[in-house]
């Protein structure tokens, strides 16, 4: 339901924005007014925050050299979200862009290193072909093409110029230079003459535009900052794009591009106005979902499967729904309710679908339904969701090690080193007589000093989740033996998974990990040791503001580091400032 409402708003918005015969700018105000309507009543009202209040914060941003300038490859979702905004949601090619390599915890950081293989180029071309065919399709073209040719059987330079200019600006995230525009127009005109079809000619030019580097690569450009001699700031369009990729996971909308065109975005007031508008928009959901899907490594779902002889209820639908459940809770809790990020690890509130109900052993609702697990339930916090439990298990059993490793790496930003070479695994032999539970079996890790160093930071957290089997169903025993889910997290003891949730809630690395991920996601670069004072500042602000994620996004988006760049064209990520990575092993 919620999704449908959202979709129709966008559709109306984009159609209006591109209504035939009228300049895109003339109607964009209307279009965006409808896009920014919050989906949940009053939910985002608190997002806007007067600049004065921010200034009153106890801390102020440390001086930094700014962030790195990047050449990022647009991701599949960024491409599709942009198309949906520009042409409406049914202009959606069935394209699968290969994901980037996960870098410093995020796929999105890999986008700043990924190259374009011939195979990838083919995929882009096929997508462009589909998109362009959809745009010039007789059923759709009157809605998305803003002019009509004098004669459909001939070229029409004026109309082609208009379309190329409008689409080029939105898809390239800045106005096309006259050279570029004319190059595409020449192709549209030439092809229309040859093919004796205005729309076929236009389609050919749009296809080429959609595989152009200005669409596929996000190239950040900088300029000297007139207010701070010696410093460099992102140019207005680069800033607009950085903002919209961060907050909406899509290219800038018309209004944001206008704020770039007028220079408004480069004034503190103008920037705050845009950021607050974006945070109040329904499109924030899409941006927040994208960020957490990346941070929680939910791309794992794309290749997840279970042994159906062991877990017959774990269907393909359950797989899709498990990912959706957690993302719904994230959006509901963090955006609609403006909740404390740390409460995600203790909340019993969730959403249940029919397929998930079978695994949760609840009566199946007719469709997605809000649900709260009863007080005292072991289902508390998102790590007790099927999503986390099933993705970090084997196809036919649990894995305390995989679960513990995932919690360390994904939620606490503490990478676990790989196992050493030539380890003698003879102690792992299984089954040894009398070893019935996972806890018994992984106990050997801790007996062996070579293994213990890393396993003692992974296994205890994973063992606390042993009351959930490999698909995430609750269980009290394993092979007839009672399960002991007690443990400690960095010195904090707990007796069961509810206690683990509380320990995570109170763990200082939980919010600081989010801050680190959010800032690197926002700027497209792994953080470095130089970013430590800046991250400390963001951490303080996050804490002062009650761990509200939209506020954190606002702080980052308005920070000087976000809009300023160290003007070297350096692209090699520096040594990462994963302070916790080494200490994780050492401190335990």
């Amino acid at each position: 339901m919620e999704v449908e409402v959202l979709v129709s708003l966008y559709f109306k918005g984009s159609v209006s924005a591109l209504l035939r015969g009228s300049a895109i700018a003339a109607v964009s105000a209307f279009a965006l007014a409808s896009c920014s309507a919050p989906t949940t009543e009053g939910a985002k009202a608190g997002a806007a925050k007067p600049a004065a209040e921010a200034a009153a914060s106890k801390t102020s941003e440390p001086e930094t050299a700014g962030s790195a300038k990047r050449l990022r490859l647009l991701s599949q979702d960024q491409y599709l979200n942009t198309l949906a905004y520009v042409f409406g949601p049914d202009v959606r090619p069935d394209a699968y862009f290969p994901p980037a390599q996960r870098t410093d915890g995020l796929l999105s950081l890999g986008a700043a290193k990924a190259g374009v293989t011939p195979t990838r180029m083919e995929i882009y071309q096929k997508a462009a072909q589909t998109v362009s065919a959809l745009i010039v399709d007789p059923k759709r073209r009157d809605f998305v093409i803003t002019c009509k040719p004098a004669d459909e059987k001939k070229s029409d330079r004026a109309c082609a110029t208009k379309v190329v200019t409008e689409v080029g600006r939105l898809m390239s995230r800045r106005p096309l230079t006259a050279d570029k525009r004319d190059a595409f127009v020449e192709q549209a005109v030439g092809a229309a003459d040859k093919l004796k079809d205005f729309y076929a000619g236009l389609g050919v030019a749009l296809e080429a535009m959609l595989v152009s580097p200005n669409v596929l690569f996000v190239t950040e450009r900088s300029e000297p900052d007139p207010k701070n001699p010696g410093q460099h700031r992102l140019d207005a369009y680069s800033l607009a794009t950085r903002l919209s990729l961060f907050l909406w996971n899509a290219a800038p909308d018309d209004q944001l591009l206008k704020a770039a065109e007028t220079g408004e975005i480069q004034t503190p007031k103008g920037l705050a106005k845009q950021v607050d508008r974006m945070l109040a928009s329904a499109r924030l959901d899409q941006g927040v979902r994208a960020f957490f899907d990346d941070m929680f490594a939910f791309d794992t779902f794309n290749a997840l499967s279970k042994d159906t002889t062991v877990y017959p209820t774990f269907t393909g639908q359950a797989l899709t729904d498990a990912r959706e459940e957690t993302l719904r809770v994230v959006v509901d809790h963090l955006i609609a309710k403006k909740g404390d990020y740390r409460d995600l690890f203790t909340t019993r509130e969730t959403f249940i679908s029919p397929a998930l109900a079978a695994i949760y052993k609840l009566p199946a609702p007719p469709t997605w339904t809000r649900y709260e697990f009863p007080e005292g339930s072991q289902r508390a916090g998102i790590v007790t969701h099927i999503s986390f439990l099933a993705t970090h298990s084997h196809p036919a059993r649990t894995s305390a090690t995989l679960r513990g490793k995932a919690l360390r790496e994904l939620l606490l930003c503490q990478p676990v080193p790989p196992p050493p070479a030539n380890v003698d695994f003879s102690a792992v032999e299984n089954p040894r007589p009398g070893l019935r539970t996972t806890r018994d079996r992984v106990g050997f890790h801790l007996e062996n000093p070579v293994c213990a160093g890393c396993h003692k930071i992974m296994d205890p957290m994973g063992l606390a989740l042993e009351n959930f089997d490999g698909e995430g169903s609750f269980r009290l025993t394993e092979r007839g033996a009672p399960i002991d889910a007690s443990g400690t997290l960095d010195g904090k003891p707990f007796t069961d998974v509810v206690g683990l949730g509380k320990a995570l809630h109170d763990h200082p690395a939980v919010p600081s990990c989010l801050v680190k991920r959010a800032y690197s996601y926002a700027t497209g670069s792994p953080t470095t040791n130089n970013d430590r004072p800046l991250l400390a500042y963001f951490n303080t602000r996050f804490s002062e503001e009650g761990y509200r994620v939209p506020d954190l996004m606002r702080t980052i988006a308005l920070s000087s580091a976000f809009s300023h760049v160290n003007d070297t064209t350096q692209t090699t990520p520096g040594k990462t400032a994963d302070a916790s990575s080494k200490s994780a092993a050492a401190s335990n």
Partner: protein
Amino acid sequence: MTSSVTFNRRSALKGLLGGGAITVGLPLLDADLNGNGTAFADESPLPVRFGTWFWGCGMTKKIFVPAQTGKNYELTEELEAIKNVKQHINVHTNLTAYRDGTFFCHYTGWVVFRTGSAPVVGNLPLYESLDTTLANRIGRTTRFKSLTATATGDIRNIISYENATTPNPPEFSPMAFYTRLFGPDFQDPNAAEFKPNPRIMMRKSALSAVTDQIKALNGKVGAEDKARLDQYFTGLRHLEQQFDHQLTKPEPRAACKPAKAFKDEPAPGTDSQLIAARHKMMTDLMVMAVACDQTRVFNMTMSKSDSNTTKQGYEKPHHTCTHEESIDEKLGYQPNASWFTKRSMENWAYFVEAFSKIKEGDGTLLDNVLIMANTDVSYARVHSLEEMPAFTAGRAGGKVKTGLHIDHKGGQGTALSYTCLKVMGLDVESWGTKSNQTNKEVGEILA
């Protein structure tokens, strides 16, 4: 062949960097490849193609390594599955991959074989993989520079790298792979009629509007990003070339007989039967893509390096099993771990046999192919990079002898890769870096 495609000498030069290029030869011409004097119907010589095959988690020495070397070796328990293709295969054992620093259990070993160097970070190699080096030389005239597929159903199971930071994503859906190869854009080389599509002509012309934009961008980025833009530009040229293919009447290829599209494909999953089914479909497509001269370089992954293949009703996936399963006292090895290796060998045999079933020239497609197969470790239980196994298959147009077991006596794994590169015409004095650098060829297999 399309006449508008020019070999890019610069890309050949770049392609050699991985091996610490010493000598750079002239671009390889098809004529150099013709070893057996046979030719296509249009009298262009039969090209020699290069392929790789990959399986995860090694083997169990005791029941894998044949007791004898040379031609008349007896098949062992784990190799029993290759009996029908024994004469087309060389079994290589006792190879070493050197870590040269940090060790990544299931990554270092195979990356050494494929790139010549041990990686220094977890998921990135230092150089392009050898299939890319060869594709840059012999893949420029075909519709696809190279093709990469995985039977695991998971696009993240990377086996080929375009360069250090750019993996070649594998095809992971047989149906999607079919569409890419033999869908609407396929030109049947044996079709009676040919009519170039004017829209494709326009499409190709329109790309020129894009080409100039690269120049403008190049001035605005650093050296490393310039290389990425160069790579993008190469991709653009590749598109132009694909359009050219569609605009040119293809030469007849007698062996080219694509099957009909699949109506269905195996459900996602890692069960060994699903993998075998997917592997069979992908293999059949790959073989036909080669027979139709759509590509001359190909990679197939059967299982990923820390293989997650499962056996129905058995709780441990392959990799977990190798570490946790007890050694059976009577058998003297891990029975389930070995069960997985045997399934891998069945799939390998299927792959080789599929090439041998296509008639080409006076012999079969396999005669004009060289395939290198390798894995990530030898004994997965302890992540050993010593005593590693590998295979080669096919006669490379008569340049390679087959049917042998070669004990490499602890020699470098890279020597095998280097031999493949040399057989395929790469003119370099050595390949690989540090302890993995080599200039030794495996003379036993050279004809």
